[in-house]
């Protein structure tokens, strides 16, 4: 299940919802608002989603993960609205009988989410400036998939 949330996420509660007796391993990813990005001091963020399409595309990604990997369940929640430093922006969790599948699927979900789900991020800087963050242009020499946490 994929959803957007305008209220703070509770990773403990999200994870407990995934647990069931036959799932041995659970891998989760939490993305938090960082205090610095590309050398600029960040005060807070604003996430704006194209809700209808984000939810459709998010659901497609979770369905793909269930198809590609031997997992038991997967879910992902993304915040929208204003967020403070340290708040959780995105959470993804996967359970599986065996941990390798859980790691692979969780990573797949978050990687695809960033590429495919229309959610925009506006950074608010200590200077007062703001900026809609764009992904690095294709072909530009950037450090690869680990670039943005």
């Amino acid at each position, binding site marked *: 299940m994929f959803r957007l949330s305008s209220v703070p996420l509770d990773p403990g509660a999200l994870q407990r919802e995934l647990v069931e007796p036959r799932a041995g391993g659970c891998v989760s990813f939490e993305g938090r608002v960082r205090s610095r990005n590309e050398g600029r001091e960040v005060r807070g963020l604003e996430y*704006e989603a194209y809700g209808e399409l984000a939810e459709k595309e998010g659901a497609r990604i979770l369905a793909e993960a269930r198809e590609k990997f031997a997992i038991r369940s997967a879910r992902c929640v993304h915040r929208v609205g204003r967020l403070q430093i340290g708040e959780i922006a995105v959470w993804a969790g996967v359970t599986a009988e065996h941990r390798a599948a859980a790691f692979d699927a969780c990573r797949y979900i978050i990687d695809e989410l960033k590429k495919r789900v229309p959610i925009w991020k506006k950074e608010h800087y200590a200077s007062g400036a703001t900026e809609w963050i764009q992904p690095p242009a294709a072909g530009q020499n950037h450090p690869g998939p680990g670039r943005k946490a």
Partner: protein
Amino acid sequence: MKMPRSQSKPAAGAGGATPKRVQVRYFAQLREQAGCAEEQVRTAAATPAGLYEELRGRHRFTLPAGRLQVAVNDDFAQWDTPLADGVSVVFIPPFAGG
């Protein structure tokens, strides 16, 4: 890709480019540049590509279509999909969520 500006006004029957109403929603920098989150547009554009060029002229959007994706009726679509009357269209600027 750019449509002549004259065709962007309702011009019924002109070469099959019958005017239609489409609902356009804007997000992020496009919303800020348009000054609104949503508008109903009467257009003779045959495709989302034509519609974007028309609206880009009107709202002075800084992003070229090549940096965007487009959704029609809340699903990803091709830029050269025929534009039907009554559809909703969203031009999707580059995103970097998460």
